[in-house]
């Protein structure tokens, strides 16, 4: 049986984005035509039935999320595509955005129809310039062809779609911070409840979904829920675009059935570790997930199984750590990123993560103290979910807490030896984090 790759099979060899015509030739926008004959409730039911879970990282049921939007609420209602792909090590949406922008637009039309939204935005990462060009062109084509705008395909359904590019804040990937950013406010998250489905963009009912999630929708409409579920190897439906980065032979991204093992991904698709290097651990779903180590290599890469292994599938893009890379320095780099990207709204995140970064930097440079581990540990404990305003800091603590669990001897050795034993890997010593004498 040939492996089905609904999301990526239409991508051209040369990666040039499909024009509208090309997209239509391979069955594009059929889902819109089909869907317009269904009722919004039917579309919602179909998607709920397909067991599609949000591909942004949280893995929440897409159909269920939609059902919280009051269908009878007066317009405007909004739909937003989260294309602010900034999770370190994550580049799966980029492929879809750059190569098949019409697929995203089609998926968004499906979602908008299901929740009866009349206005929609694609919130795109600032640095994705190629994608921006492709999307703008696709939007113009779709509007010209009557797939967007007023009275779509004479159905009476209106949908306007706009591209909005961010300014490079990781925080905007959090859906409520993204909504604030779209409104022109500071990109700080919002307290939930109220959820965006009730009070979202400009205080109106809003759905935010990930790019990959949207791209699944036309195929679910065209082929049905059973087909979608059948794509997967496990209970979580569909295919998944997995990625691997790190010191493997062939880093990249591939659309595979949901639930392939971590081993298969690293050893087969990524070609295994580079010569002379051994696998030490991996972040399975971007920078804000817990490490998986050797014992987890046969874990199925779906939401349920990865969670059972103590981590999160997240974005499904794996960062591999090898045995010649210092885990302390590795985590320090991540925490540097998180400290930089904290929005500064709540205390534990704003003040805690920079502290963690400074300690890791000290340890990495041989200035660590035994009591530093305690400080790191209380951060991993108290920057947990619910204690901070949003999921940012808990995410930032995931690689740290698992590093302390799996690579504790490295931390202790740094502190004891007063130096980093991983040769050839010097980290820039940051003046600002120098410990006071």
């Amino acid at each position, binding site marked *: 049986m040939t492996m089905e790759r609904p999301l990526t099979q239409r991508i051209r060899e040369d990666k040039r984005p499909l024009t509208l015509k090309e997209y239509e030739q391979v069955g594009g926008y059929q889902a819109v035509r089909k869907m317009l004959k269904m009722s919004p409730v039917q579309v919602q039911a179909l998607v709920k039935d397909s067991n599609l879970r949000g591909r942004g990282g949280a893995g929440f049921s897409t159909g269920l999320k939609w059902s919280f939007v009051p269908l009878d609420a007066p317009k405007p209602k909004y739909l937003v595509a989260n294309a602010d792909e900034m999770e370190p090590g994550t580049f799966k949406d980029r492929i879809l955005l750059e190569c098949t922008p019409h697929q995203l637009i089609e998926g968004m039309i499906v979602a908008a129809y299901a929740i009866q939204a009349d206005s929609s935005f694609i919130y795109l990462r600032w640095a994705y310039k190629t994608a921006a060009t492709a999307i703008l062109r696709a939007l113009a084509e779709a509007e010209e062809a009557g797939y967007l705008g007023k009275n779509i395909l004479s159905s009476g359904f209106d949908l306007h779609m706009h591209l909005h590019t961010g300014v490079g*804040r990781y*925080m905007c990937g959090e859906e409520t911070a993204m909504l604030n950013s779209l409104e022109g406010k*500071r990109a700080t998250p*919002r*307290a939930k*409840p*109220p959820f965006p489905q*009730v*009070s979202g963009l*400009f*205080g109106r009912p809003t759905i935010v979904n990930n790019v990959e999630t949207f791209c699944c929708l036309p195929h679910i409409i065209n082929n049905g829920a059973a087909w979608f579920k059948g794509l997967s190897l496990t209970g979580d439906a569909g295919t998944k675009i997995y990625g691997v980065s790190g010191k493997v032979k062939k880093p990249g991204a591939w659309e595979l059935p949901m639930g392939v093992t971590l081993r298969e991904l690293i050893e087969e698709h990524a070609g295994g570790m580079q010569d002379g290097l051994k696998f030490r651990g991996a972040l399975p779903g971007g920078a804000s997930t817990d490490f998986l180590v050797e014992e987890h290599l046969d874990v199925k890469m779906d939401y349920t199984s990865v969670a059972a292994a103590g981590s999160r599938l997240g974005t499904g893009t794996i960062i591999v750590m090898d045995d010649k890379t210092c885990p302390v320095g590795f985590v320090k780099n991540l925490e540097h990123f998180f*400290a*930089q*990207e*904290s*929005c*500064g*709204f*709540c*205390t*534990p995140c*704003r*003040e*805690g993560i*920079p*502290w963690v970064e*400074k300690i890791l930097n000290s340890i990495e440079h041989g200035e660590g103290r035994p*009591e530093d581990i305690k*400080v790191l540990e*209380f951060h991993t404990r*108290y920057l947990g979910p*619910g*204690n*901070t*305003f949003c999921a940012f800091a808990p995410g930032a603590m995931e690689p740290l807490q698992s590093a302390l669990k799996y690579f504790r001897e490295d931390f202790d050795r740094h502190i004891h030896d007063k130096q980093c034993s991983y040769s050839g890997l010097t980290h820039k010593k940051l003046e*600002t*984090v*120098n*410990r*006071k004498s």
Partner: protein
Amino acid sequence: MATLYIDNEPYEVSSGKNLLETCLTLGLDLPYFCWHPALGSVGACRQCAIKVFKDENDKKGRLIMSCMEPVTNNQRISISDAEAKEFREHVIGWLMTNHPHDCAVCDEGGSCHLQDMTVMTGHAYRQFNYKKRTYKNQYLGPFINHEMNRCIQCYRCVRFYKDYAGGKDLDAFASKNNVYFGRHEEGVLENEFSGNLAEVCPTGVFTDKTLKQHYTRKWDLTMAPSICTHCSLGCNTIAGERYGSLRMITNRYNGQVNGYFLCDRGRFGYEFVNASSRLRVPVIQDDVNGEVTLGKLLKSISSLKDSTIIGIGSPRASLESNFALRKLVGSENFYQGVSQKEWGLTNTVLNIMSKGVVPSLCMKDVEKADAVLVLGEDLTNTAPMLALAIRQSVRQQPMKEVAKANIPAWHDAAARELMQEEKGPLFLATLAATKLDDIATDTYRGVPDTLARIGFAVANRIDNSAPAVADLTPDEQKLAQKIADALMKAERPAVISGTSCGSEPLLNAAANIASALHKKNPRTGIVLTLPECNSLGLALLGGPAIEKAFEALPGSKPTAAIILENDVYRHASAESAGQFFSSCKCVVVLDHTASSTTQKASILIPTGTFAEADGTLLNNEGRAQRSFQVYEPANGIRESWRWLMQIGEALERANLAGWKSHGDVIKALANEIGDLKGVDKIVPDSTFRVDGQRIPREPHRYSGRTSMNANIEVSEQKPAEDPDSPLSYTMEGLRSLPPSSLIPYFWSPGWNSVQSTNKYQEEIGGALRGGDPGVCVVKPQGREAVYFTGIPQAFHRKQNEFLVVPFHHIFGTEQLSSLSPAVAERSPKPYVALNPQDAMTLQKKEGELIAMKIDGKPHQLPVKFNATIPFGVAGFPVGLPETDYWHLPLWAEIK
């Protein structure tokens, strides 16, 4: 009501509130920063973490932020849970990583919420040993000092300044652990409520710059409950003194009046008390030989024994002082000390309030009004705190949608997100643009007569038995209908007007609207603002206007005049005032501050300011409020009423015989003036004690008492005794809560900052324990609406003349606050405001001098463009030290 289990103890609490305010209402200590009772919850600081348990079997529980969770029935929470406590301690630890620990040199040290919360959580050992982040500070003008390094990023400042007060020039900048609160560039904070930042900030980032000029620790102040004297709203304040100078004004919470906030005029206008313009010694004009002793003074006055003496009262002096003067000279010789015009206006207000049917609203009620019409007043400049209340009122209608979405009102960020820019109905009919325009549904501009006409038309649209207005344009008719519809649709409509436009028809129109509405909706309220802090009290005392005094003078036998705390030149033209003075045999002036009038005094008697005198003021709502002496002034300065008692003795006037203290004056006043019955009972009298103890004006932490006068005398001086109130001038006395009208300062164990206000309230954000102080003595006695007639003609501009209308300035118009250096720095220079098109016709550019002739008197003033002024109208800033007095509006020649 709901049952809430806190650490396994059941409590009956009201539902709908959040857990933090519930715990605080119960008197439990729970630390917090970003939450503020007036600003609601946002969940930023994470300081108020507690544990919540599913049921009694749940031992693990889960951490929640108490400010972000509503009370639910039978909920089980824990404040003392070990994990919750440890988390709260860590929050302080995080906040302290970059805090400079400069308490010793910080203005807030010892009265700092951050210090209190640090102690409360038990955080004591610093684990963070890296360099601290530092910031550059900004110059923010004469009121507020900026010290960003102390910031703990609670976001309260911007939430107050932008969200609550409508300010535009303070914001949060940058991100991560580098968030900066300040202006986009250095400069004066523009908002009129910026001073509240000093109280809203939980630490020393924003502090009172005027206090810094003469700094003292706040617990070293001698303090007393006071009433602001800088406009007619009567905001409650705490005034503090040390070493004989007044050091600062802070807010005194009153749930009905000013709530948690003050305007900048009220907060920073106090420095006239210490100014060089203060009169500190008595002067007898003819006596140039040495010091004027009390004996000399009284002897000099006793020479007037057989003269007719007329008394000129003052709208900025207390009821007691005005009453004492009236008693002294006899009511037939007592004049109100305001112009005929002002007399007419204040009496119109008094009539509407006492003889009408519509109740006057307190500011809290204005905040709750769901449709507001402002007729004439530029409130930000004439009654600033009322403008702040209106800013909250426009949220009332959108808040109904918030409630429908099940978002609690205290969930501030979510509420604001849902309502977006939605505003409830607010209609502003004013002379020109005002600072409330940004939240107005509709604005309408014109001269006072035009505004009155639209007002009359609105009343007629509400009730067609109210007089109709002829010749309205279709646009005006449409607007009148729109306003009428919005007011009729509202649950709690409010009509606001005042005297600042100098127009009686305007007040009448406002009364007509309110009466018409009241017929349909008894929850209708009216608010009328007045020129001065005791204008209404003076009007109640009665007596004719100052012009009548001028007329009474010539022809009769030689007459003396006693002028009480009043600059006659602010109520009459220089010409007529001068004439009056020259025809007086003797002019006795009692005042605390030098003015043109004090220069005319034959006998000048220095009196106490509000801070040096007990007194009762009637605010615009008709609320009688007592203000207490903060400190005994040096050099024999006395309260005016006390001087008048002594003068009475010297003149052998039996009327005042037997008066010994404030209590005697106020009792006589309450007995004699029927409308002011009970005004002696608004605060406990001077014999009031709790367990035999007085209420100390000084906190128990007051320092230096035994040594502060050691340069004069090494033995500690006996503290002054207060015969006029139950307050003492010492640290000793009552340590528990005093009656709400006698709160000299807010303090509670572990709560050294102003946040201790929580402990004085029955419910957080509600009334003070025992009820909010002040008693409304003016109440509408009318049985049914009686409509005013006398609708003015439509305005037509004149060929060579402009109608000069009064422009008011929060900083500048009011006499006393303008003498405070910080306020003076913000006051404008005299100008004449014209529509640019009119200026173009006159071939004048902005800033160029323009020649005008008012009342036959030539003037040269620079032109200021104001595109919102109607054609043929000129705006003139009244009340500035350099501007002349006219009865505006007035036609004037401008070339």
